[in-house]
Structures are given as structure tokens and as C-alpha cells.
């Protein structure tokens, strides 16, 4: 009997150490992003004024923008994912990056469709990559994070266009270079803060590198944007 206890002790000893970690990001959508309507069955959002509905979504989007501005580890962005923010940012960026008319003879910059496809296709590829490497984050959570972290680059685009209004010489180039570099590193840092936790430790760099490449390419497109005269 004592032998059985001896042999069973090392087997079951590990069980007492098992604790469920509370900071594993949950997969999928636990809460409906629009609020607590899952708890209230009688409360339906059909009867409320349209203004309330819109404001609720806008508040959710706005809160996430604030999260990106000051990236700290919080699971709110991951839990209540939505794709409104990424769509808004992507459309804004693609509109501003559009490179002029198609009939001009010279090669122009990226068209709207090209930028749109790069952003969404790139996000999907990076998400697939992180999932294939064994990440615990879900597909849409990852798309949400990558999309929201484009925000610093969109701000940089607006700044670049304003700087270009003042002239396109060497000084403006240097200013634009600094702004784009700062925003690109901010984007990468912000998305890494959210994404890196969902990966096993020995593969973090493998997941972060494609994100770096993605924002680098977008930053490059912003930097080389030139106004057609």
C-alpha cells in the first residue's frame, strides 16, 4: 500500500499546482459588443432611438481608439472585438493614399483597391500565421487588433498631407520621415502588446516579424505618397 502511495504521489502531485490562469484571453465572442442585451431578454434594442444605437457603437469604437493610443495590456480590446474601427481607418487611409487618375501616362501610386486589399489581405495572412503557429487568439480578435493599430499610421498620413501642402522639399521629407517612423513603431508596439501574449514564448518573434513587415509596408506607402500636380 505504501508503495502505491509512493508511486501515486509523484503522479498526482502536479495536480495541486494546476491553477487556472485568469489572464488567458478568451476565444471568440463572449459578450455581444453592443452591450448587456444578452442578460436582458425583454430589453430589445429595436425600440430605442437610432441615435442611441449609433452612439453606443461609436462609443465602443472610440474607447478602442483610446486603448490604442495608450497601449497597455487589457483584455477589453480583445474581448469585445468589432470591425467598424478597422473599416473606417482602412477606408480613410486608402482614400488619402489614392494616387491620382488612371489615364495619366506615368505609373501612379497605389489605387484605392490596392491599398484596401493590402490592408485586409495582409491582416488575414498575419492572423492565419499566428494561428498556425499555435496562437490562442481567435481570428476576428486578431483582425480587430491589427486594424485598430493602423490608427497611428492614419494620423501620420493626415500629418504628411498637411506637410506636403507646405512644400515638398528636403525639409518636408525629413519631417515626414520622422513622423512616419514614429507612427510605424507605435503601431507595431501597440499591436505587439496585444498579440504577443497569445503566443508561446519561443515563437513570439516569429509572430511579431510579419506584423512589423505589414506596418513597414504601409508606412512606406505613406512616406512615398506624392501629390500629383
Amino acid at each position, binding site marked *: 500500500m505504501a508503495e502505491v502511495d509512493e508511486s501515486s504521489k509523484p503522479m498526482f502531485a502536479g495536480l495541486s499546482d494546476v491553477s487556472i490562469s485568469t489572464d488567458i484571453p478568451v476565444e471568440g465572442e463572449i459578450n455581444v459588443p453592443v452591450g448587456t442585451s444578452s442578460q436582458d431578454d425583454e430589453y430589445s434594442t429595436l425600440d430605442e432611438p437610432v441615435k442611441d444605437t449609433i452612439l453606443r457603437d461609436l462609443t465602443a469604437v472610440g474607447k478602442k481608439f483610446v486603448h490604442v493610443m495608450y497601449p497597455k495590456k487589457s483584455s477589453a480590446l480583445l474581448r469585445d472585438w468589432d470591425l467598424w474601427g478597422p473599416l473606417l481607418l482602412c477606408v480613410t487611409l486608402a482614400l488619402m493614399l489614392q494616387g491620382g487618375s488612371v489615364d495619366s501616362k*506615368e505609373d501612379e*501610386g*497605389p489605387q484605392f483597391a490596392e491599398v484596401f486589399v493590402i490592408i485586409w489581405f495582409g491582416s488575414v495572412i498575419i492572423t492565419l*500565421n499566428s494561428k*498556425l503557429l499555435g496562437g490562442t487568439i481567435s481570428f476576428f480578435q486578431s483582425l480587430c487588433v491589427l486594424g485598430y493599430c493602423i490608427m497611428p499610421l492614419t494620423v501620420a498620413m493626415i500629418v504628411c498631407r498637411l506637410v506636403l501642402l507646405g512644400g515638398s522639399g528636403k525639409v518636408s521629407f525629413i519631417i515626414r520621415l520622422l513622423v512616419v517612423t514614429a507612427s510605424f513603431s507605435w503601431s507595431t508596439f501597440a499591436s505587439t502588446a496585444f498579440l504577443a501574449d497569445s503566443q508561446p514564448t519561443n*515563437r513570439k518573434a516569429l509572430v511579431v516579424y510579419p506584423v512589423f513587415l505589414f506596418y513597414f509596408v504601409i508606412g512606406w*506607402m505613406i512616406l512615398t505618397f506624392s501629390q500629383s500636380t
Partner: protein
Amino acid sequence: MSKTWPGLPSRLVSDMASNTDFLLQFTEFDEADRALEDSRDATTIRIEDTDTERHKPQKQRRSAPVMSFEEDPLANDDQTELLSGQKKSAPFWTFEYYQTFFDVETHQVKERILGSLLPWPGKNFVRLYIHNNPDLYGPFWICATLVFVIAICGNISDFLVYLGNPQYKYVPEFRKVTIAATAIYSYAWLVPLFLWGVLVWRNSKVINMVSYSFLEIVCVYGYCLAIYIPAVVLWIIPNEAVRWLSIAVALFLSGSVLVLTFWPAVRDDQPRVAIAIMVAIVVLHTLLAVGCKAYFFKTLEVEQTAPVGIQTNSSLSSLNRSTVLTR
């Protein structure tokens, strides 16, 4: 007490018994071999060493990569894959199947990249670094990086070539990204497919050969493209001598890794066929490098000879000239 035929001398019975013992032993040897394979997580494809050439007879039936039914007997799933008879036991329509191709860690990827840069005679890239664990992470992301680096550095080099030319208006030529992507990805996937087909075909004619699975060949080609990334960055400098020097160095390093990897697979073949395959590998590798350089990077002399006044025409004509050269 075994039932014996009446009238048979006992010696014959004992001979028969020893014969069956021998038969049992022979099967055990087979089982042990298979068990040895399992314990090493090995595949049904063996990569031969020079001192294990004695074991050719039983390895020859496992060396054809197409015969993938000789799976790991411990696998629960009986789904067979055509492309690799390896340890993937999940059916190909599940996500887990593709996850097995990304079963690498950061330090492994780093080692593989370094291994592709430093050829060492006698060391086989596939055996040393891939260890029957080919991954798709390296090839895919190295190709993606190379595509964007070529497009970006091509743009930068154009800018530098035209620097000081007041009539030049810088345009980011975005079309080049798609062209570069098509070229690089087709090289990285179609050439390994073709090479694998050739190796399988030769394998069916000449028995004793090392053979690689399709994914291992894709892996080798993907990692060998890694040396081109710093080379392409060096091509920004508008100096022709620097560009050709960097091409030569990159080609020498990655070409020799390719040659050292594939030589064991073809050396048992007829010398003419083996040499032809090796030459084809090197020539295709060279063509990729030189083609990318010619198409994406303008040379300084072409622009300086063109008159400054007719700016648009000269840039268009030089583009035409460089495209004509590559076509």
C-alpha cells in the same frame, strides 16, 4: 507439445523449427526497424549517409516519396497524403494538418537561415537543419520580405539615379510589387515542384538515391532566397560594380548550398543527367537574380546619356530597353 507428422525424423522437425525461428527473427528485425523509425519521429523517406550504404536493400522500398502508405503505424488517422509520407496524421482538410508545417521555433528559423548562408562541404542543409521537420514559415515570409524589399529598393534606387534631375517627378511604381511577387513566388514554388518531379522520375530509374520530399525542397529553396535580401539592399547604390559584386557573392553562397544539398540526390545517376540537373539549378538561380536586377533597378549610365529635356520619353525608353533585355 507440437503436433508432428508421424514418421518425420526429429532433426527435420527441429530444422523446421529453427527455420520458423529465423522467419520470426526476420520479421522482428523489420518491426525493430520500424520501431526505431517511430522513436526517431522519422519519415518513410530515408536520407542516406555514406556509411549506411549497406542498408540499401530495405531502404530502397522506402525511398520513393510517392509511396506514402507506409505511414507511422501509430497514427490514428489513415488518411494518406500524396505530397509527403511524413508524420502528418491529420486529414488535409483540417486546420491541424497545416499547423504541422509551422512547427518551428524562433531559434530554429534563425539556425536555418544562417545555415543557408554558409555552405559547408559535407554538411547537407536538409539533414542538418530540417531534420524531417520542413516548415512553410521560412519560405513564405522570406519570399514576402524579398518581394517588398525588391519593390522598395527599386524605388529608392530610381530616386537616387534621378537625383539632381529637376524634371524628374518621383512616382511610387506600385505595379512593381505585383510583378515582383509573381516572379519570386513562382520561382520559390514552381521550380521545387519541377525539381521534385525530376528527382522522382530519376528515382524510378536508378534505385539507390537519396530523395527529398516536396516540402523539404520548397524549404531549401525558400531559405536559400534569404541571402538575396541584403544583396538587394546593396543594389540601392547606383554603382554597377557594387551591384555585380553583391550578386556574385550572394549567388556563390546560396548556389553552393543548393548544389551541396542536391548533389547527394543525383550523384548516383548517370553523370550527364546529374551534371545537367546541377547546372539547371544554378542557372535558374542566376536568372532570378540577374532578371530582378535588370527589371527593377535602372543603371546609371542609361540615364546620364539621355538628354535632360525630354524627360518622360527617356524614362519610358529606358524602361522599354530594360524590359526588352529581360524578355
